[in-house]
Protein backbone atom coordinates (compact mmCIF):
# COMPACT_ATOMS: atom_id res chain seq x y z
CA UNK A 1 0.00 0.00 0.00
CA UNK A 2 2.86 2.30 0.77
CA UNK A 3 4.40 1.46 -2.60
CA UNK A 4 1.11 2.38 -4.24
CA UNK A 5 1.11 5.73 -2.48
CA UNK A 6 4.61 6.50 -3.70
CA UNK A 7 3.64 5.52 -7.23
CA UNK A 8 0.60 7.78 -7.07
CA UNK A 9 2.74 10.65 -5.81
CA UNK A 10 5.25 10.18 -8.65
CA UNK A 11 2.48 10.03 -11.22
CA UNK A 12 0.94 13.24 -9.89
CA UNK A 13 4.34 14.93 -9.87
CA UNK A 14 4.85 13.85 -13.49
CA UNK A 15 1.49 15.28 -14.48
CA UNK A 16 2.01 18.54 -12.59
CA UNK A 17 5.50 18.84 -14.03
CA UNK A 18 4.05 18.53 -17.50
CA UNK A 19 1.43 21.18 -16.80
CA UNK A 20 4.04 23.57 -15.41
CA UNK A 21 6.26 23.01 -18.42
CA UNK A 22 3.38 23.71 -20.80
CA UNK A 23 2.47 26.85 -18.87
CA UNK A 24 6.05 28.01 -19.01
CA UNK A 25 6.29 27.40 -22.74
CA UNK A 26 3.03 29.20 -23.38
CA UNK A 27 4.12 32.30 -21.51
CA UNK A 28 7.52 32.32 -23.19
CA UNK A 29 6.07 31.79 -26.62
CA UNK A 30 3.38 34.34 -26.23
CA UNK A 31 5.80 37.05 -25.25
CA UNK A 32 8.55 36.09 -27.69
CA UNK A 33 7.35 34.48 -30.87
CA UNK A 34 5.70 36.33 -33.67
CA UNK A 35 5.41 33.25 -35.85
CA UNK A 36 2.26 33.99 -37.82
CA UNK A 37 -0.27 31.33 -38.76
CA UNK A 38 -2.43 31.37 -41.83
CA UNK A 39 -5.49 32.43 -39.87
CA UNK A 40 -3.76 35.33 -38.24
CA UNK A 41 -2.56 34.22 -34.81
CA UNK A 42 0.65 32.96 -33.29
CA UNK A 43 1.21 29.25 -32.95
CA UNK A 44 0.22 29.15 -29.29
CA UNK A 45 -2.97 31.03 -29.95
CA UNK A 46 -3.58 28.68 -32.83
CA UNK A 47 -3.19 25.78 -30.43
CA UNK A 48 -5.67 27.29 -28.01
CA UNK A 49 -8.13 27.93 -30.81
CA UNK A 50 -7.69 24.31 -31.91
CA UNK A 51 -8.33 23.17 -28.35
CA UNK A 52 -11.51 25.21 -28.03
CA UNK A 53 -12.83 24.33 -31.47
CA UNK A 54 -12.18 20.62 -30.96
CA UNK A 55 -14.09 20.52 -27.70
CA UNK A 56 -16.94 22.67 -29.02
CA UNK A 57 -17.35 20.31 -31.96
CA UNK A 58 -17.20 17.25 -29.74
CA UNK A 59 -19.74 18.69 -27.30
CA UNK A 60 -21.98 19.54 -30.24
CA UNK A 61 -21.68 15.97 -31.48
CA UNK A 62 -22.60 14.73 -28.00
CA UNK A 63 -25.74 16.85 -28.07
CA UNK A 64 -26.63 15.72 -31.56
CA UNK A 65 -26.26 12.04 -30.71
CA UNK A 66 -28.24 12.46 -27.50
CA UNK A 67 -30.95 14.34 -29.36
CA UNK A 68 -31.03 11.71 -32.12
CA UNK A 69 -31.46 8.94 -29.57
CA UNK A 70 -34.11 10.85 -27.63
CA UNK A 71 -36.13 11.48 -30.79
CA UNK A 72 -35.93 7.90 -31.94
CA UNK A 73 -36.79 6.53 -28.50
CA UNK A 74 -39.81 8.83 -28.24
CA UNK A 75 -41.07 7.71 -31.63
CA UNK A 76 -40.58 4.12 -30.67
CA UNK A 77 -42.47 4.63 -27.43
CA UNK A 78 -45.33 6.37 -29.20
CA UNK A 79 -45.49 3.49 -31.63
CA UNK A 80 -45.44 0.93 -28.86
CA UNK A 81 -48.21 2.73 -27.03
CA UNK A 82 -50.25 2.88 -30.21
CA UNK A 83 -49.76 -0.83 -30.66
CA UNK A 84 -50.79 -1.44 -27.09
CA UNK A 85 -53.93 0.64 -27.52
CA UNK A 86 -54.68 -1.38 -30.60
CA UNK A 87 -55.35 -4.44 -28.52
CA UNK A 88 -52.13 -5.88 -27.20
CA UNK A 89 -52.41 -7.63 -23.89
CA UNK A 90 -51.38 -5.95 -20.67
CA UNK A 91 -48.95 -8.76 -19.97
CA UNK A 92 -46.97 -8.08 -23.08
CA UNK A 93 -46.85 -4.41 -22.29
CA UNK A 94 -45.40 -4.98 -18.86
CA UNK A 95 -42.83 -7.39 -20.23
CA UNK A 96 -41.67 -4.77 -22.65
CA UNK A 97 -41.41 -2.17 -19.92
CA UNK A 98 -39.30 -4.49 -17.88
CA UNK A 99 -36.81 -4.85 -20.69
CA UNK A 100 -36.49 -1.14 -21.27
CA UNK A 101 -36.57 -0.37 -17.57
CA UNK A 102 -33.51 0.56 -15.60
CA UNK A 103 -33.58 -2.13 -12.95
CA UNK A 104 -30.44 -4.12 -13.40
CA UNK A 105 -31.33 -7.75 -13.28
CA UNK A 106 -28.82 -10.54 -13.41
CA UNK A 107 -30.78 -12.34 -16.08
CA UNK A 108 -30.89 -9.33 -18.28
CA UNK A 109 -27.17 -8.74 -17.87
CA UNK A 110 -26.43 -12.27 -18.91
CA UNK A 111 -28.70 -11.97 -21.91
CA UNK A 112 -27.14 -8.75 -23.11
CA UNK A 113 -23.63 -10.02 -22.63
CA UNK A 114 -24.44 -13.26 -24.37
CA UNK A 115 -25.67 -11.21 -27.26
CA UNK A 116 -22.51 -9.13 -27.14
CA UNK A 117 -20.32 -12.22 -27.11
CA UNK A 118 -22.31 -13.62 -29.98
CA UNK A 119 -21.98 -10.38 -31.91
CA UNK A 120 -18.30 -10.17 -31.21
CA UNK A 121 -17.73 -13.74 -32.27
CA UNK A 122 -19.55 -13.04 -35.47
CA UNK A 123 -17.28 -10.13 -36.08
CA UNK A 124 -14.14 -12.00 -35.18
CA UNK A 125 -14.69 -15.10 -37.26
CA UNK A 126 -16.97 -13.94 -40.03
CA UNK A 127 -16.45 -16.94 -42.26
CA UNK A 128 -18.16 -19.30 -39.87
CA UNK A 129 -21.43 -17.44 -39.96
CA UNK A 130 -20.98 -15.87 -43.34
CA UNK A 131 -24.16 -15.96 -45.31
CA UNK A 132 -23.84 -13.57 -48.18
CA UNK A 133 -27.50 -13.36 -49.00
CA UNK A 134 -30.27 -12.95 -46.51
CA UNK A 135 -33.71 -14.27 -47.20
CA UNK A 136 -35.28 -10.84 -47.19
CA UNK A 137 -32.64 -9.45 -49.47
CA UNK A 138 -33.33 -12.20 -51.95
CA UNK A 139 -37.04 -11.55 -52.09
CA UNK A 140 -37.24 -7.83 -52.45
CA UNK A 141 -34.08 -6.71 -54.13
CA UNK A 142 -31.82 -7.60 -56.95
CA UNK A 143 -28.23 -7.12 -57.76
CA UNK A 144 -26.48 -7.63 -61.00
CA UNK A 145 -24.50 -10.62 -59.81
CA UNK A 146 -27.00 -12.91 -58.26
CA UNK A 147 -28.37 -15.45 -60.66
CA UNK A 148 -30.70 -17.63 -58.68
CA UNK A 149 -31.98 -17.69 -55.16
CA UNK A 150 -33.17 -20.52 -53.04
CA UNK A 151 -36.47 -18.76 -52.53
CA UNK A 152 -37.22 -18.64 -56.20
CA UNK A 153 -37.09 -22.37 -56.38
CA UNK A 154 -38.21 -23.30 -52.90
CA UNK A 155 -41.71 -24.28 -53.94
CA UNK A 156 -40.50 -26.58 -56.66
CA UNK A 157 -40.91 -30.28 -56.32
CA UNK A 158 -42.54 -30.03 -52.92
Amino acid at each position, binding site marked *: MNGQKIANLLTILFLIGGLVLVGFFMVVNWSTFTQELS*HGGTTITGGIVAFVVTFLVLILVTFVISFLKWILNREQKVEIEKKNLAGKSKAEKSTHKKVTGSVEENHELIAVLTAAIHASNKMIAPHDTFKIFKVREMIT*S*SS*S*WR*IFSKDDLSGVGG
Partner: protein
Amino acid sequence: MEFINGLLGVFESSGFVAMNWPSIIMILVGFVLLFLAIKYQFEPLLLIPIAIGCILVNLPLSTIGDVHHGFLGQIFSVLTATEILPIIMFLCLGALTDFTPLLSRPITFILGAAAQFGVFMALFLAIGFGFSPQESAAIAIIGGADGPTSIFLATKMAPQLIGAISVAAYSYMSLVPMILPPVIRALTTEEERKIKMETPKPVSKTTKILFPIVVSIVVGLILPSAIPLIGMLMAGNLIRESGVVERLSKTLQNELVNIATIFLGLTVGSTMVAGQFLVPETLKIILLGLIAFAFGAAGGTLMGKLMCKLSGGKINPMIGAAGVSAVPMSARTVQIEGQRYDKSNYLLMSAMGPNVAGVIGTAVAAGVFLALFH
Protein backbone atom coordinates in the same frame (compact mmCIF):
# COMPACT_ATOMS: atom_id res chain seq x y z
CA MET B 1 -8.26 39.46 -30.06
CA GLU B 2 -6.02 36.99 -31.78
CA PHE B 3 -8.05 34.21 -30.18
CA ILE B 4 -11.33 35.65 -31.41
CA ASN B 5 -9.82 36.09 -34.87
CA GLY B 6 -8.69 32.46 -34.82
CA LEU B 7 -12.18 31.28 -33.89
CA LEU B 8 -13.67 33.47 -36.60
CA GLY B 9 -11.13 32.06 -39.05
CA VAL B 10 -12.30 28.54 -38.27
CA PHE B 11 -15.92 29.61 -38.72
CA GLU B 12 -15.13 31.38 -41.97
CA SER B 13 -13.48 28.26 -43.35
CA SER B 14 -16.37 26.07 -42.21
CA GLY B 15 -18.99 24.67 -44.49
CA PHE B 16 -21.73 26.92 -43.06
CA VAL B 17 -20.32 29.96 -44.84
CA ALA B 18 -20.20 28.19 -48.18
CA MET B 19 -23.59 26.56 -47.76
CA ASN B 20 -25.68 26.77 -50.92
CA TRP B 21 -28.93 25.32 -52.18
CA PRO B 22 -27.50 23.12 -54.94
CA SER B 23 -25.23 21.37 -52.45
CA ILE B 24 -28.08 20.92 -50.00
CA ILE B 25 -30.26 19.43 -52.73
CA MET B 26 -27.50 17.03 -53.76
CA ILE B 27 -27.04 15.92 -50.14
CA LEU B 28 -30.79 15.32 -50.00
CA VAL B 29 -30.52 13.29 -53.22
CA GLY B 30 -27.88 11.25 -51.41
CA PHE B 31 -30.27 10.76 -48.48
CA VAL B 32 -33.05 9.61 -50.79
CA LEU B 33 -30.74 7.08 -52.45
CA LEU B 34 -29.60 5.82 -49.03
CA PHE B 35 -33.20 5.53 -47.90
CA LEU B 36 -34.25 3.59 -50.99
CA ALA B 37 -31.17 1.37 -50.81
CA ILE B 38 -31.44 0.55 -47.10
CA LYS B 39 -35.20 0.51 -46.61
CA TYR B 40 -36.35 -0.90 -49.96
CA GLN B 41 -33.05 -2.52 -50.97
CA PHE B 42 -32.75 -0.68 -54.27
CA GLU B 43 -29.51 -2.20 -55.61
CA PRO B 44 -27.81 -1.44 -52.29
CA LEU B 45 -24.42 -2.83 -53.32
CA LEU B 46 -23.93 0.05 -55.72
CA LEU B 47 -26.36 2.71 -54.53
CA ILE B 48 -25.06 2.88 -50.94
CA PRO B 49 -21.48 3.64 -52.03
CA ILE B 50 -22.78 6.03 -54.72
CA ALA B 51 -24.92 7.86 -52.17
CA ILE B 52 -22.03 8.12 -49.71
CA GLY B 53 -19.77 9.51 -52.42
CA CYS B 54 -22.47 11.98 -53.44
CA ILE B 55 -22.98 13.26 -49.89
CA LEU B 56 -19.29 13.59 -49.06
CA VAL B 57 -18.43 15.42 -52.27
CA ASN B 58 -21.29 17.88 -51.88
CA LEU B 59 -20.60 18.92 -48.30
CA PRO B 60 -19.60 22.59 -48.75
CA LEU B 61 -15.85 23.11 -49.27
CA SER B 62 -15.24 19.39 -49.41
CA THR B 63 -12.09 18.50 -51.37
CA ILE B 64 -12.53 14.72 -51.25
CA GLY B 65 -13.46 14.71 -54.96
CA ASP B 66 -10.45 16.73 -56.06
CA VAL B 67 -8.64 14.74 -58.75
CA HIS B 68 -5.20 15.83 -57.58
CA HIS B 69 -5.44 15.72 -53.80
CA GLY B 70 -8.81 14.30 -52.81
CA PHE B 71 -9.14 10.66 -51.76
CA LEU B 72 -12.08 9.84 -54.02
CA GLY B 73 -10.93 12.15 -56.81
CA GLN B 74 -7.53 10.47 -57.05
CA ILE B 75 -9.04 7.00 -57.10
CA PHE B 76 -11.57 8.15 -59.69
CA SER B 77 -8.96 9.51 -62.04
CA VAL B 78 -6.66 6.50 -61.73
CA LEU B 79 -9.13 3.63 -61.57
CA THR B 80 -12.53 4.74 -62.84
CA ALA B 81 -11.82 7.34 -65.52
CA THR B 82 -9.31 4.93 -67.03
CA GLU B 83 -12.14 2.32 -67.22
CA ILE B 84 -10.09 -0.08 -65.13
CA LEU B 85 -12.71 -0.59 -62.40
CA PRO B 86 -15.66 -0.99 -64.80
CA ILE B 87 -13.73 -3.60 -66.77
CA ILE B 88 -12.68 -5.42 -63.60
CA MET B 89 -16.40 -5.55 -62.81
CA PHE B 90 -16.92 -7.25 -66.18
CA LEU B 91 -14.22 -9.78 -65.41
CA CYS B 92 -15.89 -10.56 -62.08
CA LEU B 93 -19.40 -10.63 -63.58
CA GLY B 94 -18.18 -13.20 -66.07
CA ALA B 95 -17.02 -15.37 -63.20
CA LEU B 96 -20.37 -14.87 -61.47
CA THR B 97 -22.55 -15.74 -64.46
CA ASP B 98 -23.76 -19.22 -65.29
CA PHE B 99 -24.66 -19.32 -68.98
CA THR B 100 -26.13 -22.83 -68.77
CA PRO B 101 -29.78 -21.76 -69.25
CA LEU B 102 -28.78 -19.90 -72.41
CA LEU B 103 -26.61 -22.70 -73.77
CA SER B 104 -29.34 -25.20 -73.08
CA ARG B 105 -31.63 -23.36 -75.50
CA PRO B 106 -29.41 -21.19 -77.73
CA ILE B 107 -32.35 -19.78 -79.69
CA THR B 108 -33.36 -17.71 -76.65
CA PHE B 109 -30.27 -15.59 -77.35
CA ILE B 110 -32.50 -13.83 -79.91
CA LEU B 111 -34.78 -12.68 -77.08
CA GLY B 112 -31.84 -11.09 -75.30
CA ALA B 113 -31.02 -9.36 -78.58
CA ALA B 114 -34.57 -8.12 -79.12
CA ALA B 115 -34.60 -6.51 -75.68
CA GLN B 116 -31.88 -4.14 -76.92
CA PHE B 117 -34.67 -2.46 -78.90
CA GLY B 118 -35.12 -0.13 -75.92
CA VAL B 119 -31.52 0.97 -76.20
CA PHE B 120 -32.06 2.16 -79.76
CA MET B 121 -35.40 3.84 -79.02
CA ALA B 122 -33.64 5.78 -76.28
CA LEU B 123 -30.79 6.57 -78.65
CA PHE B 124 -33.05 8.21 -81.21
CA LEU B 125 -35.05 10.05 -78.57
CA ALA B 126 -31.84 11.32 -76.92
CA ILE B 127 -30.59 12.63 -80.25
CA GLY B 128 -33.98 14.28 -80.70
CA PHE B 129 -33.71 15.80 -77.22
CA GLY B 130 -30.53 17.52 -78.37
CA PHE B 131 -27.85 15.33 -76.83
CA SER B 132 -24.66 14.80 -78.81
CA PRO B 133 -24.25 11.39 -80.47
CA GLN B 134 -21.75 10.36 -77.78
CA GLU B 135 -24.03 11.44 -74.94
CA SER B 136 -27.01 9.82 -76.61
CA ALA B 137 -25.21 6.50 -76.86
CA ALA B 138 -24.14 6.61 -73.21
CA ILE B 139 -27.69 7.45 -72.12
CA ALA B 140 -29.28 4.87 -74.39
CA ILE B 141 -27.25 2.02 -72.91
CA ILE B 142 -29.16 2.52 -69.64
CA GLY B 143 -31.83 0.47 -71.39
CA GLY B 144 -29.52 -2.53 -71.34
CA ALA B 145 -30.03 -2.70 -67.57
CA ASP B 146 -26.39 -3.53 -66.94
CA GLY B 147 -24.71 -1.16 -64.50
CA PRO B 148 -21.05 -1.69 -65.38
CA THR B 149 -21.72 -1.36 -69.12
CA SER B 150 -23.44 1.96 -68.49
CA ILE B 151 -20.60 3.24 -66.32
CA PHE B 152 -18.03 2.02 -68.85
CA LEU B 153 -19.68 3.73 -71.79
CA ALA B 154 -20.41 6.93 -69.87
CA THR B 155 -16.76 7.10 -68.81
CA LYS B 156 -15.63 6.84 -72.41
CA MET B 157 -18.32 8.83 -74.20
CA ALA B 158 -19.86 11.33 -71.76
CA PRO B 159 -17.83 11.64 -68.55
CA GLN B 160 -19.87 14.66 -67.46
CA LEU B 161 -23.02 12.50 -67.30
CA ILE B 162 -21.55 9.51 -65.47
CA GLY B 163 -23.32 10.30 -62.19
CA ALA B 164 -26.78 10.80 -63.66
CA ILE B 165 -26.45 7.77 -65.94
CA SER B 166 -25.29 5.48 -63.13
CA VAL B 167 -28.03 6.57 -60.78
CA ALA B 168 -30.68 6.18 -63.49
CA ALA B 169 -29.35 2.77 -64.52
CA TYR B 170 -29.25 1.30 -61.03
CA SER B 171 -32.54 2.88 -60.00
CA TYR B 172 -34.46 1.43 -62.93
CA MET B 173 -32.75 -1.92 -62.42
CA SER B 174 -34.31 -1.86 -58.94
CA LEU B 175 -37.66 -0.90 -60.40
CA VAL B 176 -37.75 -3.79 -62.86
CA PRO B 177 -40.48 -5.59 -60.84
CA MET B 178 -42.67 -2.50 -61.40
CA ILE B 179 -41.73 -1.67 -65.01
CA LEU B 180 -41.94 -5.12 -66.61
CA PRO B 181 -45.39 -6.44 -65.58
CA PRO B 182 -47.57 -3.72 -67.20
CA VAL B 183 -45.66 -4.03 -70.47
CA ILE B 184 -45.92 -7.81 -70.41
CA ARG B 185 -49.66 -7.72 -69.66
CA ALA B 186 -50.39 -5.14 -72.33
CA LEU B 187 -48.65 -7.12 -75.04
CA THR B 188 -49.58 -10.72 -74.26
CA THR B 189 -52.79 -12.69 -73.87
CA GLU B 190 -53.56 -14.66 -70.73
CA GLU B 191 -53.20 -17.90 -72.68
CA GLU B 192 -49.69 -16.95 -73.71
CA ARG B 193 -48.77 -16.06 -70.15
CA LYS B 194 -49.93 -19.50 -69.00
CA ILE B 195 -47.65 -21.43 -71.36
CA LYS B 196 -45.42 -23.81 -69.45
CA MET B 197 -41.88 -24.39 -70.62
CA GLU B 198 -39.56 -27.30 -70.25
CA THR B 199 -36.81 -26.69 -67.77
CA PRO B 200 -33.50 -26.17 -69.56
CA LYS B 201 -31.33 -29.30 -69.68
CA PRO B 202 -27.79 -29.32 -68.36
CA VAL B 203 -25.13 -28.81 -71.01
CA SER B 204 -21.74 -30.48 -71.36
CA LYS B 205 -18.64 -29.02 -69.76
CA THR B 206 -17.01 -28.72 -73.19
CA THR B 207 -19.84 -26.49 -74.39
CA LYS B 208 -19.50 -24.26 -71.35
CA ILE B 209 -15.75 -23.95 -71.86
CA LEU B 210 -15.95 -23.30 -75.60
CA PHE B 211 -18.77 -20.76 -75.29
CA PRO B 212 -16.73 -17.87 -73.78
CA ILE B 213 -13.84 -18.54 -76.18
CA VAL B 214 -16.04 -18.59 -79.28
CA VAL B 215 -18.08 -15.54 -78.28
CA SER B 216 -15.03 -13.40 -77.59
CA ILE B 217 -13.39 -14.43 -80.86
CA VAL B 218 -16.51 -13.84 -82.99
CA VAL B 219 -17.51 -10.55 -81.38
CA GLY B 220 -13.90 -9.42 -81.06
CA LEU B 221 -13.27 -9.99 -84.75
CA ILE B 222 -16.33 -8.03 -85.84
CA LEU B 223 -16.09 -5.29 -83.24
CA PRO B 224 -12.53 -4.65 -82.01
CA SER B 225 -13.89 -1.86 -79.82
CA ALA B 226 -15.95 -4.40 -77.86
CA ILE B 227 -12.90 -6.49 -76.91
CA PRO B 228 -12.39 -5.00 -73.42
CA LEU B 229 -16.05 -5.56 -72.47
CA ILE B 230 -16.86 -8.88 -74.11
CA GLY B 231 -13.30 -10.14 -73.80
CA MET B 232 -13.05 -9.63 -70.07
CA LEU B 233 -16.62 -10.80 -69.42
CA MET B 234 -15.83 -14.00 -71.27
CA ALA B 235 -12.38 -14.24 -69.59
CA GLY B 236 -14.09 -14.29 -66.19
CA ASN B 237 -16.53 -16.91 -67.43
CA LEU B 238 -13.73 -19.07 -68.83
CA ILE B 239 -11.89 -18.89 -65.51
CA ARG B 240 -15.14 -20.02 -63.88
CA GLU B 241 -15.97 -22.84 -66.28
CA SER B 242 -12.45 -24.18 -66.85
CA GLY B 243 -12.77 -25.96 -63.51
CA VAL B 244 -9.02 -26.02 -62.91
CA VAL B 245 -8.52 -22.61 -61.29
CA GLU B 246 -11.28 -22.57 -58.72
CA ARG B 247 -9.26 -20.39 -56.34
CA LEU B 248 -9.02 -17.63 -58.96
CA SER B 249 -12.71 -17.97 -59.78
CA LYS B 250 -13.72 -17.69 -56.13
CA THR B 251 -11.55 -14.62 -55.61
CA LEU B 252 -13.15 -12.95 -58.63
CA GLN B 253 -16.64 -13.79 -57.35
CA ASN B 254 -16.01 -12.54 -53.84
CA GLU B 255 -13.17 -10.34 -52.71
CA LEU B 256 -12.28 -8.71 -56.01
CA VAL B 257 -15.85 -7.90 -57.02
CA ASN B 258 -16.54 -6.52 -53.55
CA ILE B 259 -13.48 -4.29 -53.52
CA ALA B 260 -14.20 -3.09 -57.08
CA THR B 261 -17.85 -2.41 -56.17
CA ILE B 262 -16.95 -0.28 -53.15
CA PHE B 263 -14.50 1.91 -55.01
CA LEU B 264 -16.53 2.08 -58.20
CA GLY B 265 -19.59 3.18 -56.22
CA LEU B 266 -17.77 5.73 -54.09
CA THR B 267 -15.97 7.29 -57.05
CA VAL B 268 -19.04 7.36 -59.30
CA GLY B 269 -20.89 9.04 -56.45
CA SER B 270 -18.10 11.57 -56.12
CA THR B 271 -18.79 12.80 -59.66
CA MET B 272 -22.29 13.90 -58.65
CA VAL B 273 -21.31 17.49 -57.88
CA ALA B 274 -24.24 19.89 -57.85
CA GLY B 275 -23.06 21.91 -60.84
CA GLN B 276 -23.05 18.87 -63.09
CA PHE B 277 -25.99 16.95 -61.70
CA LEU B 278 -28.60 19.66 -61.13
CA VAL B 279 -29.14 20.41 -64.78
CA PRO B 280 -32.16 19.81 -67.04
CA GLU B 281 -30.20 17.01 -68.75
CA THR B 282 -30.50 14.88 -65.62
CA LEU B 283 -34.29 14.95 -65.82
CA LYS B 284 -34.13 14.08 -69.51
CA ILE B 285 -31.81 11.17 -68.72
CA ILE B 286 -34.24 9.87 -66.09
CA LEU B 287 -37.12 10.05 -68.55
CA LEU B 288 -35.09 8.44 -71.33
CA GLY B 289 -34.04 5.65 -68.97
CA LEU B 290 -37.68 4.80 -68.27
CA ILE B 291 -38.51 4.77 -71.97
CA ALA B 292 -35.48 2.59 -72.67
CA PHE B 293 -36.54 0.03 -70.05
CA ALA B 294 -40.16 -0.04 -71.23
CA PHE B 295 -39.25 -0.49 -74.90
CA GLY B 296 -36.63 -3.08 -73.99
CA ALA B 297 -39.31 -5.13 -72.26
CA ALA B 298 -41.68 -4.54 -75.17
CA GLY B 299 -39.08 -5.58 -77.75
CA GLY B 300 -38.29 -8.76 -75.89
CA THR B 301 -41.95 -9.62 -75.33
CA LEU B 302 -42.92 -9.05 -78.96
CA MET B 303 -40.02 -11.19 -80.17
CA GLY B 304 -41.23 -13.77 -77.65
CA LYS B 305 -44.68 -13.67 -79.23
CA LEU B 306 -43.12 -14.27 -82.63
CA MET B 307 -41.09 -17.20 -81.36
CA CYS B 308 -44.16 -18.54 -79.59
CA LYS B 309 -46.01 -18.57 -82.92
CA LEU B 310 -43.12 -20.10 -84.84
CA SER B 311 -42.51 -22.81 -82.24
CA GLY B 312 -46.15 -23.74 -82.10
CA GLY B 313 -46.71 -22.41 -78.60
CA LYS B 314 -43.68 -23.91 -76.92
CA ILE B 315 -42.17 -20.57 -75.86
CA ASN B 316 -43.83 -18.35 -73.26
CA PRO B 317 -43.51 -14.82 -74.69
CA MET B 318 -42.97 -13.37 -71.22
CA ILE B 319 -39.43 -14.73 -71.02
CA GLY B 320 -38.55 -12.25 -73.76
CA ALA B 321 -39.05 -9.42 -71.28
CA ALA B 322 -36.25 -10.96 -69.19
CA GLY B 323 -33.88 -9.88 -71.94
CA VAL B 324 -33.79 -6.58 -70.09
CA SER B 325 -30.89 -7.92 -68.04
CA ALA B 326 -30.91 -6.59 -64.46
CA VAL B 327 -29.68 -10.13 -63.72
CA PRO B 328 -31.49 -11.95 -62.15
CA MET B 329 -34.29 -9.54 -61.32
CA SER B 330 -36.06 -9.63 -64.68
CA ALA B 331 -36.08 -13.41 -64.77
CA ARG B 332 -37.51 -13.47 -61.28
CA THR B 333 -40.17 -10.95 -62.23
CA VAL B 334 -41.18 -13.19 -65.13
CA GLN B 335 -41.34 -16.18 -62.77
CA ILE B 336 -43.64 -14.28 -60.38
CA GLU B 337 -45.79 -13.06 -63.25
CA GLY B 338 -46.09 -16.63 -64.51
CA GLN B 339 -47.14 -17.96 -61.14
CA ARG B 340 -49.81 -15.28 -60.90
CA TYR B 341 -51.84 -17.29 -63.43
CA ASP B 342 -50.67 -20.80 -62.65
CA LYS B 343 -48.92 -21.72 -59.42
CA SER B 344 -47.32 -24.75 -61.05
CA ASN B 345 -45.56 -22.73 -63.73
CA TYR B 346 -41.81 -22.42 -63.19
CA LEU B 347 -40.39 -20.08 -65.81
CA LEU B 348 -37.33 -18.90 -63.89
CA MET B 349 -34.72 -21.12 -65.47
CA SER B 350 -36.14 -20.58 -68.94
CA ALA B 351 -36.14 -16.81 -68.39
CA MET B 352 -32.51 -16.90 -67.31
CA GLY B 353 -31.51 -17.64 -70.93
CA PRO B 354 -32.68 -14.31 -72.36
CA ASN B 355 -31.59 -12.67 -69.11
CA VAL B 356 -27.89 -13.50 -69.48
CA ALA B 357 -28.12 -13.11 -73.26
CA GLY B 358 -29.16 -9.52 -72.59
CA VAL B 359 -25.83 -8.88 -70.88
CA ILE B 360 -23.96 -9.91 -74.02
CA GLY B 361 -26.46 -8.02 -76.17
CA THR B 362 -25.88 -4.78 -74.32
CA ALA B 363 -22.11 -5.22 -74.40
CA VAL B 364 -22.31 -5.70 -78.17
CA ALA B 365 -24.45 -2.58 -78.52
CA ALA B 366 -21.90 -0.66 -76.47
CA GLY B 367 -19.13 -1.94 -78.73
CA VAL B 368 -21.05 -0.81 -81.81
CA PHE B 369 -21.56 2.63 -80.29
CA LEU B 370 -17.84 2.88 -79.57
CA ALA B 371 -17.00 1.88 -83.13
CA LEU B 372 -19.43 4.34 -84.68
CA PHE B 373 -19.55 7.34 -82.34
CA HIS B 374 -16.22 7.43 -80.50
